[in-house]
């Protein structure tokens, strides 16, 4: 907090930091719940808490009930002749598996055994569990200076008790060598349209103190974070079902249900904070295509908005039990003249971590402090 504490805006941001992180009590109650949360975390780290233990392992997935049911029906209907066909098919399948594994066997001669992921009953890599996201940020070269970066809402670390998303030792060591941030363009100088760059610099100059509601930092308004705006000091949880991949954020309790059942995007006139995501598996990589964004979330502290023309493609690939390689391609033709590629990592979260309730609007005093009145009468 290097900006004068006397300024109402400065104060509000400081309060925001505390409110953001906890289920919204008064300061003393917050401190109390911090204590409780800390003790819970410590307990679960030691596996003393049954609740803490329970959440990290979600690897038992739903098998497809429809699949087994229809298989039963089929085998009832079909006669003996089909058994012969089935046997032939089986032979073909075995043969093709053997053929497919030949190159892998040859490759094994030169390189150490390749790790293969555990699989869900529908045959995809099992990424279920708790994760900490790292590195996925629109970190540009030579960003404009903004006093925002000096504020607590994003510039100050949370107390360590909130780091339930901290990665495991294995993941932590691997993180050191992982790509992070903007990887294309390689020099991290973003391919701005000049008018868009000018517009965001103009916008930034009105943010501290905010000239009006429009210029209040998105996270301070408890806006759903979009794909890059999430606060990665909070963990994520992945749950997989046949036909969908679910990514849950602790931050602002966002849930992204990414259907992989071949359905199309929602209609073009629907605009969403988190966009409309549909996924497909390319081999063992989940590819998520997202459109239908509104223009109300931010890319970063220094890029406080994007346009409604935003289109993203994310790729999730499990590298080992502790690392999911995460890449996102950003296309926003109203802002940039070329796509931007960003790399990041989902690293396995510490054992015993779990999603807690993140109450933002319920506890934040940011807007009442900025505008001098609250949402309820008498505030």
């Amino acid at each position, binding site marked *: 907090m290097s900006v004068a504490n006397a*300024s*109402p*805006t400065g104060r509000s941001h400081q309060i925001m930091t505390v409110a953001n992180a906890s*289920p*919204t009590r008064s300061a003393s*109650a917050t401190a109390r*719940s911090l204590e*409780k949360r800390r003790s*819970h975390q410590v307990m679960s780290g030691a596996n003393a808490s*049954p*609740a*803490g233990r*329970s*959440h990290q*392992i*979600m690897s*038992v*997935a*739903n*098998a*497809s*009930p429809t699949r087994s049911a229809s298989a039963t029906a089929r085998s009832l209907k079909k006669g003996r002749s089909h058994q012969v066909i089935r046997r032939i098919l089986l032979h073909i399948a075995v043969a093709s598996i053997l053929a497919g594994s030949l190159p892998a066997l040859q490759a094994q001669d030169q390189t150490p055994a390749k790790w293969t992921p555990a699989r869900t*009953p529908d045959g995809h890599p099992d990424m*279920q569990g708790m994760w900490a996201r790292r590195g996925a940020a629109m970190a540009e070269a030579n960003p404009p200076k903004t006093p925002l970066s000096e504020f607590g809402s994003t510039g100050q670390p949370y107390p360590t008790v909130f780091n339930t998303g901290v990665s495991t030792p294995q993941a932590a060591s691997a993180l050191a060598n992982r790509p992070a941030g903007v990887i294309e363009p390689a020099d991290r100088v973003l391919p701005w349209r000049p008018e868009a760059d000018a517009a965001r610099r103009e916008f930034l100059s009105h943010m501290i*103190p*905010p*000239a*009006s*509601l429009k210029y209040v930092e998105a996270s301070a*308004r*408890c*806006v*759903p974070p979009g794909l890059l705006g999430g606060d990665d000091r909070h963990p994520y949880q992945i*749950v997989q*079902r046949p036909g969908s991949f*679910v990514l*849950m954020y602790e931050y*602002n*309790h*966002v*849930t992204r*249900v990414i259907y992989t059942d071949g*359905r199309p995007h*929602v209609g073009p006139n*629907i605009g*969403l*904070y*988190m966009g409309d995501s549909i996924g497909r598996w390319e081999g063992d990589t989940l590819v998520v295509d997202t459109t239908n964004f509104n223009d*109300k979330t931010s890319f970063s502290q220094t890029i406080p908005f994007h346009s409604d023309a935003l289109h993203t493609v994310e790729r999730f690939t499990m590298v080992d039990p502790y690392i999911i390689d995460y890449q996102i391609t950003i296309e926003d033709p109203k802002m940039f003249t070329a796509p931007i590629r960003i790399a990041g990592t989902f690293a396995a979260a510490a054992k015993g971590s*779990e999603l807690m*309730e993140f*109450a*933002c609007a*319920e506890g934040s005093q940011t*807007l009442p402090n900025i*505008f*001098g009145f609250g*949402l*309820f*009468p008498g505030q």
Partner: protein
Amino acid sequence: MSKRLTVWFAFWIFLLALPAWAQAQPRGIPRAADGKPDLNGLWQVLSTAAWDLEDHNGSLRVHAGQGVVEGGEIPYQASALAKKRDNFQRRETDDPAEAACYMPGVPRATYMPFPFEIIQNPKLITMSYEFGHARRSIFTDGTPHPDGFPDFWMGDSRGRWEGDTLVVDVTNLDDRTWLDHAGNHHSDALHVVERYTLTDPDHMLYEATLEDPKVFTRPWKISMPLYRRMERNVKILEYECVQYIQDQKYGNAKPVGAKP
């Protein structure tokens, strides 16, 4: 008639009778791989409980409705009933869910007039509500409510299966949520037991028992059906009322200390 022919005859009779036999059976409920009822999907109420759990007449933008409280009325203690009446008078400005878009709590999240999605795995059932993108985790791994947790807007939920019914025990509920728009309320001692029972593939019976020794004279129960949203490709969208309310309240306001 040869024996062989008799067998064939019987076989064909059996085959022809099969559809009729199948029709006579009640439609089975979908099941997950672990044999439990499969609750996955989008669900929504068709009731007026979000406005008022009890019998109520229509008024501007409020549908008339028959109550969902077993026995008709909520058994308030005298002082708590006075508070309910006071809340009712101030409901347009003071209902935390409607006036500020705070998370609606349990059980109100279930009967808000918005869909919610159930994401079911053997050890965790997640409910993701369109209203304010609220979410709750229901742990079905046999763990009890943890000691020393603070209160949460959506409570702490632990579930178990009783036959084909999902029974969810909810504690740690924040006392600042209301049970409906009519000002029905509770304290931090509220304990809710919910029961979710599939009655056929597309309908679920929702029951909730509410116990709060600081506010009610005895436990009481509500029940209503949940309907599966069956539109093609239907999904949870966004109802970000936090943002809509901020726009309405502060959209034309001037920040304190802003340059003139």
